[in-house]
């Protein structure tokens, strides 16, 4: 009977690990499957196209050119290789101010016809229309060729304007740089504090002190991140603004400060455990050789615990990179390449959280957010591989 139970529990354990493994794998496959579709999409919004008059010599526009034309930053055709004429922008909705629904016929059957007439009559027009209503077999009009979103546009582009119509721009470089910058500075702030507190708690503090401090620090980990964000926006941002003499308080540095506070409990708890795991025999041996307390800490305890401490730091970095809500609230979320620490930045998790809600399912914006998730996943994967390497190396040295 006992044997059967044992077998049962064993298979249960086996199954749960298999389920976990498969779930992780499925999530990764899902992430990449949704994201990679982006590189097959046209730069112009799905289901829409750009139409011009055949007299217009322009045949092809890049995503940036399209954006600048529709923002009235480019106002003359000669700037994009056409003749010297002012550009007239025509958005699809304008047709409804020119004709009533009755004039457009039942089920909008006359709509393509009317659109065609407008385009035929103006050689300077550029019209942004749903593919469905592009007039077919009509002379005098032509569709513009547009590019497919390329990997270099995505990874090296510096403009993130995912909702721009007709042509959205998905340059993730500012987001990647923003994420790495905020996390890196956060960890630079958190390491000396965290490791310092861990050494104090494990080596110097009295038992009573430790009993009070440790739960207090662990409590820090229990505060919801949105509370940290609120605290950052209302308290830390004005202080950063005042002390730094800045025009605004929502900067990368503010985000780093908050993230540093949030990473502290992880770093402190894990490195303190590692430090305390140093065998008593090692310490005693050190004292027996005549080393004082500082020498023992510095030469024996810290080297022994170093792999645990690096693991703590790496986990802290992981926490900082993936943190969403607090960063969303304090960094100002401006998607520009940061030139200094005291400028607003937009991070990858904040972008996904803020934009996924309204991104139409399956569209380019949606796909680009999934791809951002893939990028974030790869960054954390690299970090955990590095942490494996570091802790592995130290153990061999022992």
């Amino acid at each position, binding site marked *: 009977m006992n044997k059967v139970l044992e077998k049962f529990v064993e298979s249960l354990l086996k199954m749960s690990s298999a389920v976990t493994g498969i779930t992780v794998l499925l999530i990764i496959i899902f992430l990449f499957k949704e994201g990679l579709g982006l590189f097959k999409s046209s730069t112009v919004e799905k289901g829409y196209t750009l139409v011009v008059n055949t007299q217009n010599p322009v045949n092809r526009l890049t995503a940036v050119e399209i954006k600048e034309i529709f923002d009235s930053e480019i106002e003359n055709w000669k700037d994009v290789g056409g003749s010297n004429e002012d550009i007239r922008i025509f958005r699809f909705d304008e047709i409804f101010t020119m004709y009533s629904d009755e004039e457009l016929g039942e089920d909008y059957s006359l709509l393509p016809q009317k659109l065609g007439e407008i385009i035929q009559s103006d050689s300077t027009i550029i019209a942004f229309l749903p593919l469905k209503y592009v007039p077919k077999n009509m002379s005098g009009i032509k569709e513009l060729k547009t590019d497919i979103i390329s990997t270099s546009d995505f990874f090296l582009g510096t403009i993130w304007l995912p909702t721009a*119509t007709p042509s959205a721009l998905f340059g993730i470089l500012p987001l990647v740089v923003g994420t790495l910058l905020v996390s890196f500075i956060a960890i630079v702030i958190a390491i000396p504090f965290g490791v310092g507190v861990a050494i104090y708690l494990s080596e110097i503090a009295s038992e009573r002190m430790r009993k009070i401090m440790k739960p207090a620090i662990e409590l820090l980990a229990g505060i919801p991140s949105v509370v940290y964000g609120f605290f950052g926006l209302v308290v830390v941002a*004005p202080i950063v603004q005042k002390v730094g003499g800045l025009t605004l308080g929502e900067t990368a540095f503010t985000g780093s400060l908050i993230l540093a506070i949030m990473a502290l409990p992880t770093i402190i708890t894990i490195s303190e455990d590692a430090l305390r795991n140093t065998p008593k025999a090692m310490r005693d041996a050190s004292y027996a050789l005549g080393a004082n307390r500082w020498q023992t800490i510095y030469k024996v305890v810290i080297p022994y615990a170093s792999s645990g401490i690096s693991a703590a730091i790496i986990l802290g970095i992981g926490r900082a990179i993936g943190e969403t809500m607090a960063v969303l609230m304090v960094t100002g979320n401006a998607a520009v390449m940061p030139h200094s620490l005291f400028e*607003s930045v937009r991070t990858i998790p904040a972008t996904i959280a803020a*934009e996924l809600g309204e991104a*139409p399912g399956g569209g380019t914006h949606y796909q680009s957010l999934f791809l951002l998730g893939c990028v974030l996943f790869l960054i954390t994967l690299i970090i955990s591989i590095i942490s494996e390497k570091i802790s592995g190396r130290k153990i061999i040295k022992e």
Partner: protein
Amino acid sequence: MKKSILTAIVIILTLSGSYAQKIKGSDTVLPLTQEEIEAYKKEKPSASISVTGGGSGVGITALLNGTTDIAQSSRKIKFDEKQKLAEAGKAVKEVIIAYDALSIVVHPSNKVSQLTREQLEKIFTGKITNWKEVGGDDMKIIPYSRETSSGTYEFFKESVLKNKNYMNGILSMPATGGIIQSISQTKGAIGYVGFAYVTDKVKALNVSYNNGKTFIEPTIANAKNKSYPIVRPLYYYYTNLSAEGKSFIDFILTPKGQNVVSKVGYITIK
């Protein structure tokens, strides 16, 4: 025994679920719908209506999928959304339940008290970057925007920016509360929020839509008589409605329901 109790619970839950009227969509309309339901339940305690947010687009998608009875929206239904509903054989009906107006707000110490639409467009598209260009102090302008998922973001882009894109790298906040907080502590800031959210921590600007001929103060009265320009309707969309849903919408349109509208800080339809 246990099993039968469980099935009974499941059946009761699904039954009550199927009778409840579901409303879904815009977060701007959400507080209003909640208050309306409260008021409606006082009249009809047996009524069962549930409401969830998520954004205008989410609501209309849910209407298309049939997972909601009414979609609440802070923008007009888009042409292609209407087409998709028509393809699914659903004729969509529209009711305006209230109006919402946007205020342009700045830091209270800012000398500027009025702007034209053209100036606002240039500020939010990054063409004007210093307050002295619009009659203020020599100070950098810091425009704040809402996140792209917000219906307010879309409406402001349509009405004030005339469909141009916001400047690259505009500061964006996930919620209206964040905008108020940031503007109240940043001297050169400018942003936009719904009327109901304006507090004395920020200053609301007068706006002109006729190139500076007249500047209109953002007050409820001005929004009501349509002289204040940045006003948008709040909609309910539905395809076919049960008696319960119909009587709820009728209730909102009665003077009692419209009282709730002004209590929440929106503008009544009459």
